[in-house]
């Protein structure tokens, strides 16, 4: 299935213009980042407002290795995953003692504090950041193969692989343990699950995936700098996860597309309405925040799950009405 998806994407990337290819790469990055939130929040029940900071850890790790040791790009991505996972394990160890709002607040403080650290160490390049160059696409792909298509390929492949990994993880014993702990911690403990360890593990894996997303984000903008990982990024990821349906991986593409498409849609709407400057510039923010609230209130489990539930209900009704006729 994932291979088929790859084939579809391959043909797509050949059909559309460069801007859409770039946006496609961004969507793929968001898909990965959002899936890390879904794993953490939707399955293991922990909230993080600091995944932007973990993305920064991955991005900086990849960039520093690329610049200092000129490692092959694939290794840079692997190290990005590992570095962020280590960060996540540390944070997860703290997180296991906290829950709900405490965890949210701690990760919030992290998201604000961590990126500014880059100014304290010369090797991290300060405010202007570090270059992160994955290199030109291989010549074998042809002259017309643009840089952005190359980015898109790498990001899309990484997205397919990480989706595959996450899906398998979630349906494994770990996934069951997370869900058990999320539902009722005491019951899970009675059933012999070490909930604390299970939570730290979820945080570690989620952070690793976020680190990969961070390195890929750095690839698409060619640099790593503190301002690329603002608090707003962490909020966007959570928004994307909620819009996708935070308890299921199935809708992850929805959140990612919405995050990329909304500024453009808002732009069109604002211009159509002929609104003033202050309305135009603030409309995207309003739409995203408004959607977030509406989703939490009315489709808390996300559009995909909602659709599935309605279908199941419909099917059940259908079955029962059939039975009546007989």
């Amino acid at each position, binding site marked *: 299935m994932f291979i088929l998806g790859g084939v579809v994407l391959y043909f797509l990337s050949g059909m559309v213009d460069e801007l859409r290819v770039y946006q496609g790469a961004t969507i793929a990055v968001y898909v990965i980042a959002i899936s890390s939130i879904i794993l953490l929040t939707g399955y293991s029940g922990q909230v993080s407002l600091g995944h932007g900071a973990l993305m920064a850890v991955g991005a900086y790790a990849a960039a520093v290795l690329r610049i200092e040791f000129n490692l092959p790009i694939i290794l840079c991505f692997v190290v990005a995953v590992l570095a962020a996972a280590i960060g996540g394990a540390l944070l997860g160890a703290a997180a296991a003692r906290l829950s709900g709002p405490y965890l949210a607040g701690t990760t919030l403080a992290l998201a604000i504090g961590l990126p500014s650290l880059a100014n304290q160490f010369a090797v991290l390049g300060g405010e202007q950041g570090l270059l992160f160059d994955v290199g030109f696409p291989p010549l074998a792909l042809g002259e017309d193969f643009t840089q952005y298509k190359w980015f898109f390929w790498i990001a899309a492949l990484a997205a397919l692989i990480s989706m595959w990994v996450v899906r398998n993880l979630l349906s494994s014993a770990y996934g069951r343990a997370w869900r058990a702990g999320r539902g009722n911690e005491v019951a899970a403990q009675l059933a012999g699950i070490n909930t604390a360890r299970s939570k730290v593990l979820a945080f570690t894996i989620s952070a690793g995936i976020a680190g990969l997303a961070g390195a890929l984000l750095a690839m698409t903008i*060619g*640099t790593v*700098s503190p301002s*690329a990982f603002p608090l707003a990024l962490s909020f966007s990821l959570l928004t994307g996860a909620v819009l996708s349906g935070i308890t299921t991986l199935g809708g992850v593409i929805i959140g990612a597309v919405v995050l990329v498409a909304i500024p453009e849609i808002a732009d069109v709407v604002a211009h159509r309405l002929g609104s003033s*400057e202050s309305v135009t510039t603030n409309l995207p923010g309003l739409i995203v925040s408004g959607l977030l609230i509406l989703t939490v209130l009315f489709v808390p489990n996300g559009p995909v799950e909602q659709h599935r539930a309605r279908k199941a209900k419909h099917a059940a009704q259908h079955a029962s009405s059939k039975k009546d006729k007989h």
Partner: protein
Amino acid sequence: MKALNRRKLITASAVLAIVGLASTAIPAQAAEVGVSSTQIKLGMTLPMTGTASLGYNKIPGAAKAYFDYLNANGGINGRKVTLVVKDDRYVPTEAVAKTNELILKDKVMALLAPLGTANVKAVASSVNPARRGVPVLFVNTGFSGFADVKKYPTTYTVLPSYIMEAKIMGEYIKENFAGKKIGLLYQDDDFGTDALAGFKAAGTNFAIKVPYASGSQNAAAAAGWITKFKAAEVDVVILFGVSSATSAMLGVAAQLKYAPQWMLGSVGGDATTIKATGVPAGVLYNAIGFSPVPATTDMKDEYVKFFSDIYAKAVPGSAFDLNVLLGMNTAFMTAQALKAAGANPTRKSLLAAIDSKGATFANSALVPAGYSKTSHVGLTGYWVGKYSPTGDLSPIGGTYVTYTTDSGSGPVVKSTYKRPAMPAKGLPN
């Protein structure tokens, strides 16, 4: 069942992706991208919202005010200049995305005055205007690196670099405050790192250096800085930060009756901006300031008078400050570059025009620009002034004394530069 769901997932995502990606514009066939028989399209990304937007979000209005004036007076050889502005919220990711839109969707001819070192660097790396041949005119940062022709062949800086400014400040201190204890407030990122490099080149020694994290400058922080400077008993305090840092510092200094000899860097030294935050004008009195362009209150200056008249008509009620003056000056230089690029300007001819004639473009600056085939350095110096009792920066003794230097180890020299007179009606000639 599971396989079925997965298939659905993939189909759904494929459908969504196609819907999302389907709308592709067909490029119009023209002599050059962004240039038609009736208009020339330029694009700008900068923070219009968010913490970093204060002050800078006046720049598009200022540039448009000049372009509108230009268009009403015949435009560039009959072509109207239009400016597409996008908000990047000072985030590199956004800057890259919006610049891609400007180049690939809006199809602008050139990028104008992008803001922020990290943003310009990210755009240079990812969007790569150089490889696409897209001119990046007059980036709005004092980071000296963007003048490197080899690394950024289509990018031109305009502001003098932070290094130049620090070197000139160091020279002024040597001449006027020898033997005094000097304190420095600086931002703990590249902005400050460049300043430190400049002061080092000038041989300035500091009794105390106080860094602040960008975004942390408020009244409480300023009380802390002042406490440090007081403890170090310095005579001169250099404020090499952004406007909000200068304002916070001077505002709190007034409350704490702290009055050393102030020296204000140009980035955070605009009197109009500082006074708008409620800093009493008296605090600024006798402070030393630096600027490449004339004082914004100097209505005897033909450019300042001309620009402020246009701006007052275009954006009524908005104060004419340094950001506005610089924004209009950049638009003015751009107009000359477009005019110099020939009857049917192309990206190539635009770049060539700046390389060959850029150094002679009329503009309000009192120091020369360094454009040539081998250098994309913009303005190369500052004039030194003092703030008046009403808090406005004015030249000492009524005449502008200018210094020029480079971003390397070159000396600081008093300049004899004579500014070209303003072309008739403020239109490019």
